[in-house]
């Protein structure tokens, strides 16, 4: 069952250099209970897409067209009051850098009090505190840490607190934007374990935004690959890893060294990601694509649905 449907969503940033088409016409359906890995490099629009779903885009970013339907509500056009009820309670978000997410001048307890104050005004302070304590323990942090300031916690603990704030009202969808990128390998593994456990226990639908192919391989059920603001390929994790259909996905997978298969050749992708103020014509990947032909330079290929729940935007697969 579909829980969230993103439909033709486009987002732009107006800058002094011109308009950046950060996300262009993205269609993405999210199934209840799945983990979808939104993969791409910096500037591919994956974070912008995540923020747009909750309409949290900082200016000068704005949604220019499209819809994001959740529970028959279009999040793009909904009233701020409606959104306020959805944020945190229905859909919530965890960000990349926990140090930047928590207020350095507020105790952990006050973060939770502020959160409950905004979302559950009827809850008393003492009830809110005891709920916060319960959450911390569930996340593996001793409850006395509630009195600490963020700087007294380690990076992993801070991210646990952020996750605690995000799941405090048991939302149905959790958007995790590079939740482990700022963390060390061992802590990363701990946090991914935690997210997988929470997903199971709370029946969450998880949108995992990351550039790390290893993280999606271990966590996601489905993968959506973004390049330069467009979805280029969507499909099941196993089938994408086994047989990538888009040349970018293929190149991306070949460019990641695998510790377990060190003999496997690693190939770099030539060139650089495009400048989105002045994007290339046609398929945005064509300047770096080994298979590009005339048609690719003229027009961007549409995202076509194939069997096996695969979607790909490439003329090579159009026949």
């Amino acid at each position: 069952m579909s829980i969230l449907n993103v439909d033709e969503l486009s987002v732009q940033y107006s800058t002094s250099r011109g308009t950046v088409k950060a996300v262009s016409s993205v269609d993405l359906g999210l199934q209840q209970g799945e983990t979808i890995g939104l993969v791409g490099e910096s500037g591919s629009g994956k974070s912008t897409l995540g923020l747009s779903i909750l309409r949290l885009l900082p200016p000068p970013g704005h949604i220019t067209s499209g819809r994001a339907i959740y529970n028959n509500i279009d999040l793009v056009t909904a009233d701020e009051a409606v959104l306020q009820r959805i944020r945190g309670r229905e859909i919530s978000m965890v960000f990349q850098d926990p140090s930047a997410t928590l207020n350095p001048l507020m105790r952990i307890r006050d973060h939770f009090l502020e959160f409950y104050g905004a979302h559950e005004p009827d809850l008393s302070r003492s009830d809110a505190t005891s709920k916060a304590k319960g959450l911390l323990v569930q996340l593996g942090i001793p409850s006395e840490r509630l009195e600490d300031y963020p700087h007294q916690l380690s990076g992993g603990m801070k991210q646990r607190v952020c996750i605690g704030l995000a799941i405090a009202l048991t939302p149905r969808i959790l958007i995790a934007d590079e939740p482990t990128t700022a963390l060390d390998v061992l802590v990363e593994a701990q946090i991914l374990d935690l997210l997988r456990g929470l997903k199971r226990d709370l029946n969450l639908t998880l949108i995992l935004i990351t550039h790390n192919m290893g993280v999606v391989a271990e966590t996601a059920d489905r993968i959506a690959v973004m390049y330069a603001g467009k979805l280029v390929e969507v499909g099941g994790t196993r089938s994408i890893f086994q047989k990538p259909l888009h040349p970018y996905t293929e190149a991306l997978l070949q460019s990641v060294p695998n510790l377990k298969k060190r003999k496997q050749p690693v190939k770099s992708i030539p060139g650089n990601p495009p400048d989105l103020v002045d994007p290339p014509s046609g398929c945005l990947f064509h300047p770096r694509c080994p298979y590009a032909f005339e048609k690719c330079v003229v027009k961007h290929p549409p995202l076509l649905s194939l069997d096996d729940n695969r979607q790909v935007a490439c003329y090579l697969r159009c026949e």
Partner: protein
Amino acid sequence: MAMEGAKKYFPVQKSFIERFVSRQAEYVKAVDGVTFEVQRGEVFGLVGESGSGKTTTGFVILGLIRPDEGSVLFDGTDMTKIGDEEFRKMRKRMQMVFQDPSSALHPRMKIGQNIAEPLRIHAAGSAQERKATALKMLETVGLIPAEMFFDRYPHELSGGQKQRVVIARALILHPELVVADEPVAMVDVSVRVQILDLMMKLKNELDLTYIFITHDLSAASYVCDRIAVMYLGKILELAPKDELFDNPQHPYTRALLAAVPVPDPADRRDKVVPKGEIPSPINPPSGCRFHPRCDHAVESCCAQEPLLKEVSAGHVVSCPILPFRELRK
């Protein structure tokens, strides 16, 4: 290059009142007795989590930080004992590539000036010659047409291109040793292997020796010949790359390797991740520094600081309970 028992303790800043309350000075033991050798032409990896002391070790090698104890030998000369003049000459032979190319380049200097700056500092050649050298260097690192890049400013370049500039600047004095501190951590995923390939190509063309500092074991596996695993200012294990990955001995190394996400959905398994996080280097645990998080720890682990022991040719481990059977599997 060789480092012998190098130590660097940074004093902890205390407030006025604290100084009265406690007499004892506290130190961050960033590098605490590190010994290793790097052969000419080798790519030596220093891997570890943040706070393991790998970057400080890199700084000590280059003489950017003076060690409190121990020596750093470069081509037979003890860098910690020579005068400033001699030091400057030696420094020409070793250079650094930094993690963040955006902050490593001067934003108001053109790319060409950035690259030629080391030549200017070491007064090599006329302005004309310096420009010619810089142009050639730009071509060497693949920024073509060089004339066009020469007159650009850093903000006009992408992350990968900027890192190429940083590499060009590090190589322009023809160093013998390059310390690369997380050279691809800030670079886009699709460009990372490009940069690593470039570094390896330049190594072969220019006869370089690399010390490659990283937290990314996959990147280390791609370029390094030998790898040292650091934890809280100490080397816990050091081995040739394949030996380290195929036959890791130290419980910490094993945990680290198991924790790396593998880009292969067929290889999903449950991982045993050690609890907790890297402790503070101000008062590191006694004995083996990893013992509080180690599944195999026995009583003696907290009492005695283990020494590096050779388990096979070129493979040394500092674990007090090694070798024991379960671990050797």
